[in-house]
């Protein structure tokens, strides 16, 4: 049995540490004491965030019992999961591997499919040929050489992504990123997943509780007790239990029970930058068992937002995210229905769900001994599927920063907050970039999105720089950027941004190598599209046979 960090207030939380120290008197837990070990972790909330955090921490710190780490997840049966976010980033493969689940089980139980990037339709000028790709595989030669200036000077016929990355060809044919003989979590092209969030959390829960020794409690929190030193001492539950811990992780979603309601950390709205504040979501059945499953998220711009279209193995998830300042719910629903009708997917059986979106984040997600992960920390519109990757990054950072004693908590919090403030800012910049580069003039939503006062300074300055310099590694300062220079290149040049690179900074050697890289890309695209099975074909075979671990 793993320990549960529940305790009576008159019992010491852990054996006293250090010679000569006495347990604190009843009722006065020395929770804030500097040399107190950090070994009891309570996670509040059992959605995607809660279980990813539980899985990452429990697999990184597998020792339980008296000399180990106790991890308890408490969730309310009342709180239905939001369960819309279905797109991930390739980081999810390392995360799932770290947690220790099998890719076969994950694909089967979460109705997951392979995602190799995003396709943007009608984002630039809304013409019929208006589409570009943001694939997960990096541009050719990316480690050594910046191909962008040479692609730009070559007046190429094909789009930027198709020229520098073989993966767009795989996406446009709805092919899988791997073969049935490719081991779990490995690929011939970089990939992530589309998943059913409603099935993902229970899948992780089963593994965390069954294999990793995470304690799971269904209860409601009725009170949060401060420790008198700027931290949380314990939670009081509806059934009368006390949950004491050294670190509390708030994964309670928009409710933000600890970080918001208790700690009072303000939420910084981003609605002046990112205008999306509502969504209509719907699930679309496949017409038959043979209908192709797209291996990219398709994002199609509309009058006042955009429609996501995601293929799982069981169904498609489609939705329209829009701005209520520019469009009423009714008109938005009509646009979504028109999108479906144009594809022959509109029927009277569909049920449309209206979801509010509040773009923004908390500037501090770690306060005292409480850290927020997931929607409680922030949410930005789902344009580049940043929600789950931010959960993974947070879980990894907490695992890496986890201090041995309470005295280290402040430093860990400071580093975490600096890192994540930076990450939120970069995501905001990157999402906004898609709107700033649009040349659509068919609605105020698009025109207003380009108004200078809605563009963060950091993005404006970067874009000025990129007028004469193609984005490259050193433009970004952090070790682990959410969106690297590669992503910026795909969006900028996919949307027709012009960089006039200074000719004296280009040279023939690089130019020749760039040319070789482009022809090699075309060769690989042809070879791989001949070798790879369709996304649906491979997923069906995995359902039947599974993938090998090696």
């Amino acid at each position: 049995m793993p320990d549960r960090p529940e305790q009576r207030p008159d019992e010491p939380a852990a054996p006293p540490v250090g010679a000569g120290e006495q347990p604190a008197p009843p009722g006065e837990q020395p929770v804030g004491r500097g040399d107190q070990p950090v070994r009891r972790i309570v996670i509040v909330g059992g959605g995607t965030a809660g279980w990813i955090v539980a899985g990452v921490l429990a697999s990184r710190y597998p020792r339980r019992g008296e000399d180990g780490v106790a991890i308890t997840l408490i969730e309310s049966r009342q709180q239905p999961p939001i369960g819309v976010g279905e797109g991930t980033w390739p980081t999810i493969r390392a995360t799932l591997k770290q947690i220790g689940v099998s890719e076969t089980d994950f694909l089967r139980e979460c109705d997951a499919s392979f995602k190799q990037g995003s396709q943007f339709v009608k984002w630039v000028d809304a013409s019929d040929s208006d589409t570009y790709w943001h694939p997960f595989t990096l541009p050719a030669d990316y480690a050594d050489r910046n191909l962008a200036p040479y692609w730009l000077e070559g007046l190429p016929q094909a789009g930027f992504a198709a020229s520098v990355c073989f993966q767009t060809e795989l996406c446009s044919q709805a092919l899988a990123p791997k073969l049935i003989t490719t081991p779990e979590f490995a690929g011939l092209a970089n990939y992530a997943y589309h998943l059913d969030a409603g099935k993902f959390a229970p899948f992780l829960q089963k593994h965390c509780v069954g294999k990793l020794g995470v304690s799971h409690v269904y209860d409601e929190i009725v009170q949060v007790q401060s420790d008198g030193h700027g931290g949380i001492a314990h939670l009081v539950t509806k059934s009368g239990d006390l949950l004491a811990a050294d670190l509390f992780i708030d994964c309670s979603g928009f409710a933000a029970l600890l970080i918001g309601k208790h700690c009072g950390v303000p939420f910084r709205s981003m609605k002046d930058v990112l205008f999306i504040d509502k969504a209509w979501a719907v699930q679309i059945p496949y017409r038959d068992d043979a209908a192709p499953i797209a291996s990219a998220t398709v994002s199609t711009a509309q009058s006042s937002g955009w429609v996501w279209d995601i293929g799982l193995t069981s169904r498609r998830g489609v939705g329209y995210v829009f701005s209520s300042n520019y469009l009423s719910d009714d008109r938005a629903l009509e646009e979504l229905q028109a999108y479906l009708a144009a594809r022959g997917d509109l029927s009277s059986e569909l049920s449309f769900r209206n979801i509010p979106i509040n773009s923004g984040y908390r500037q501090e997600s770690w306060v005292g001994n409480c850290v927020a992960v997931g929607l409680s920390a922030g949410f930005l519109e789902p344009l580049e599927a940043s929600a789950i990757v931010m959960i993974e990054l947070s879980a990894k950072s907490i695992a890496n920063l986890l201090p041995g004693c309470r005295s280290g908590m402040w430093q860990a919090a400071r580093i975490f907050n600096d890192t994540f403030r930076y990450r939120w800012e970069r995501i905001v910049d990157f999402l906004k970039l898609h709107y700033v580069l649009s040349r659509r003039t068919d609605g105020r939503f698009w025109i207003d999105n380009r108004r200078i006062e809605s563009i963060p300074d950091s993005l404006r300055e970067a874009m000025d720089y990129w007028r004469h310099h193609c984005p490259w590694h050193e433009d970004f300062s952090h070790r682990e950027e959410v969106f690297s220079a590669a992503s910026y290149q795909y969006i900028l040049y996919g949307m027709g941004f012009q960089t006039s690179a200074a000719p004296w900074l280009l040279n023939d050697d690089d130019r020749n190598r760039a040319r070789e890289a482009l022809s090699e890309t075309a060769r690989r695209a042809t070879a791989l599209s001949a070798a790879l099975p369709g996304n649906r074909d491979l997923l069906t075979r995995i359902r039947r046979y599974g993938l090998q671990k090696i």
Partner: protein
Amino acid sequence: MVNLVVLDSRTHRNVRVAPRPSREWAEINVVSVVPREFPRLVAHYPIFFTKSAESGRFEPAVLLGFQRTENLFFAHGRWDVAYVPLQIQRQPFSLMPRRGAGPAGSQPSLDVALDLDCSNIQTQEGERLFLDDGAPSKFLQDITSILSALVSGSREAYEFTGRLAELNLVEPVRIDVEFVDRSEAKLEGLYWIAAAALKALPAAQLAELRDRGFLEWLYFQMASVAHMSGLVARKNQVLSGVTAARRPEGGNAGPA
């Protein structure tokens, strides 16, 4: 090209099959095998595991050469070892699921099919498939039993390799060889028993492998790898222009 037709005692009453080995199915460097052949294969061939292109599952296979169509056991129109894998012996026959037969979800009935484009098929010489009264000949009966041994053998093979994979007893092996003329071969996509994992296997699981008959198969595989040096020697002989000596026991590779 392969032109498979279901065998029929009337249509194919006069068809004869020359029981001689044919290049058509010898020019291949990996042949899938079934565990029940291991005791005989282990005398000649290195046995590995490969992944099925259809299912990705591991299946046992013997390695015959270092290039895609190189079979170092086949020279001068014949196999020069005493035992030829069932997968070769069955040629040019195979089994085809019967169309529309049986309730949904049940194992489909199988019919014996013949590759009509095979050059061994004729009407003058060779083994008859059917007697004058339409009954199957001894030759055809032998073929049928080889085919059914392959069907049940393949089921056993997947049970075997599936369990090995679950127990993490399979690992990839990379083969890099340099031959006498300094040319090199690198083979990928081969797997073998992870000896270290086997040594560390808990007693209960070891007993389970023994009880299911897997343990001896597993050791046959491990022992068979010793034939890799023989395979390299065969290749070196070919490269040095030395004709592989015909062994006295190297007879025809017809159905045993």
